[in-house]
């Protein structure tokens, strides 16, 4: 069953088209990653999904209906611009925000305690948010978005500005949360996060959806592979062979981008003629490569 369904959604602000005719389904219990440069329309898409913005055309449906404030208890949101009450105590803040999503007070108090312990910050419960470091504030922000056990969790850049240890901690928490049955949509500028966490993914560019589908499918339909050959001999000349689209030299060999698998076998045969081959591998393209190919520039 499709839980979140974006149908031909377009959002214009005056003359500016922030989101241009996007259609997309996110199945229940899935994790969907959004990639896109700044200003690609990720946040606008999320705000439309949340009902904060109404699409100029098209619609966004959640379980067949437009999202309204009646769905508030089922939805969790981590905005890109982090925001908490600076002068309110962490525990009070978490309970207040969960209660706004109509969670029971006792449950919210208990849940907040458990999550703080899980993120190894129980001693911050009675501190003011402004006294916490950026990374710890972000933990609190994430707890605030999922404390009330939403069925749909929307995370806008959940990992930005965190150190690697905390990224791992948050990743694990988000994966666990998905395993409990939540549908999660998140945006990131880190390809590896999307690759690691997501079932499905989309790439947005200037408001348009340029790629979308399961990661495996996206890679397959990309129709290109990388051939990695490490050899004692100089294999640079092989890049001139027909079927090689791109060659990236490395210290002891290089990576050839090919569109046809047969070219790979040909490359291997020719490399062997030049000298002994230390390593040969047919590799899937990385998301980074797909992104550069589709968007025409590097993703920063």
């Amino acid at each position, binding site marked *: 069953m499709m839980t979140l369904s974006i149908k031909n959604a377009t959002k*214009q*602000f*005056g003359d500016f088209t922030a989101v241009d005719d996007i259609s997309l389904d996110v199945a229940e219990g899935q994790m969907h990653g959004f990639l896109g440069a700044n200003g690609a329309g990720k946040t606008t898409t999320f*705000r439309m999904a*949340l*009902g*904060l*913005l*109404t699409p*100029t055309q098209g619609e966004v449906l959640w379980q067949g209906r437009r999202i309204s*404030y009646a769905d*508030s208890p089922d*939805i969790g*949101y981590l*905005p890109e*611009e*982090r*925001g*908490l*009450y*600076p002068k*309110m105590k962490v525990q009070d803040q978490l309970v*207040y*925000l969960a*209660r*706004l*999503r*109509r969670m029971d007070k006792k449950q919210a108090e208990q849940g907040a305690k458990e999550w703080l312990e899980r993120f190894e910050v129980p001693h911050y419960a009675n501190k003011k948010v402004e006294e916490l470091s950026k990374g710890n504030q972000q933990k609190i922000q994430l707890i*605030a*978005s999922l404390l009330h056990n939403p069925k749909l969790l929307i995370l806008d850049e959940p990992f930005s500005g965190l150190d690697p240890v905390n990224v791992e901690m948050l990743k694990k928490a988000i994966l666990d949360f998905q395993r409990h049955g939540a549908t999660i949509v998140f945006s990131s500028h880190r390809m590896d996060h999307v690759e690691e966490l997501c079932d499905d993914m989309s790439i947005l560019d200037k408001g348009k959806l340029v790629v979308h589908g399961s990661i495996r499918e996206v890679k397959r339909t990309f129709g290109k592979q990388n051939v990695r050959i490490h050899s004692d001999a100089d294999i640079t000349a092989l890049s001139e062979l027909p079927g090689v689209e791109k060659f990236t030299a490395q210290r002891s060999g290089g990576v050839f981008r090919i569109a046809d698998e047969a070219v790979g076998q040909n490359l291997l045969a020719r490399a062997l003629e030049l000298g002994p081959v230390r390593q040969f591998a047919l590799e899937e393209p990385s998301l980074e490569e797909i992104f550069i190919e589709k968007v025409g520039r590097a993703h920063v």
Partner: protein
Amino acid sequence: MYSFWIIFKQAFKTKAMTKSFMITTLVVVASFFLLANLPSIIESFDGDDNSQQTIQVVDGTGQYTEALQAQLDQQDSAIQLEASALSEEQLRTDVEAGEMDAFLVIEGDDEITARYIAESATESAQAAELENALQSLQTARVAEQLELEATELAQLFAPVEMEREALAESSKSQEELSQARGLVYILIMVIYIAVIYYPNMIAMEVANEKSSRVMEILISSVSPVKHMFAKIAGIGSLGILQMMIFALAGYLAIQSSGSDLTEGVFSVMGFSEVKFSTFFYAILFFLLGYFLYAVLAALLGSLVSRTEDVQQLMLPMMILIIIASFIAFSGISMPEAGYVTVASYIPFFAPLVMFLRVGLLDIPLWEPLLSIAIMLLTIGILGWFGARVYRGGVLMYGSSQSLKDIRRAIKLGNEK
């Protein structure tokens, strides 16, 4: 409704727990007690005034000292005269040396002339008392010379009696008016401060939530309109609580001063003829004024991205309130002026000006009712309009400092 109460309670609680709120409340309550007990406090400092003051007199004629003393005693003065054996020159050196505060020189036969010589001119109360006594003495002497009878003298100094009578039916009698005036003045002051203080609180709250970016979380959880009205209701209740504390403190303070509200200072304030309706209207116009300006403040607060910009955007609203107060305070002395009547129907002025009119004049009931209806209508329109601006405004960031942004916000709110 659940989330409305959550926001309502939160707004009420966090504001009530702030240091500034508690300190303001305490300071006002303390000053009430101080003011109410001011007369007795002043008296306790004035203890020495009743002690005897002895003044040396150089009486050239030798005939006035006794008569002057008699006159002073009649005036309940504490001054005691003492004929000095020393000459004026010697007394002068004594005063200069600080051994004596002041002395009096009386001269003249038919017309009394006197000189009061003191180290500094600050002992004027004593001088005035002496001058008064000398004046009476002089008058009595002249009357004697002219062979006037005491009754004739009384006639000469009798004050003119002029009674003011108002013919307009609506006007209260002069006596009633002056009694009501003090109370109305105080209550207008209270309403004036309240419609500045509490709506400002709201604008700051909204701007705070926007600048800390918690707003986006809030309005993804609860509708912005609900959020806005819950906040206004929460802080409004806090305002009512604070006013009730002040009223209770004021009452207790007056009780503690031992006055029964009809004497001295309080008689001027008109507490002796307290009319229940005046208080009722004061509460009513306080609430209406609060809601009117609170909606406007929430709307303006939603436009700024930084709390520093709040005051700038609030300026037009403050000017409205200040104009209202000018009309109301100037209207206290002439409540029937044309501009006061007109202003009492203009919604932004009505909370102060219509209250002034119902407090001071006997106007027919339909007049305040019409004014209240106009205000309710304006609050309704402003609430509807404010909710639209608010919906867009809370998502709008950037250097918004002008009222032009209202249009942008409505557009964003509509596109929603």
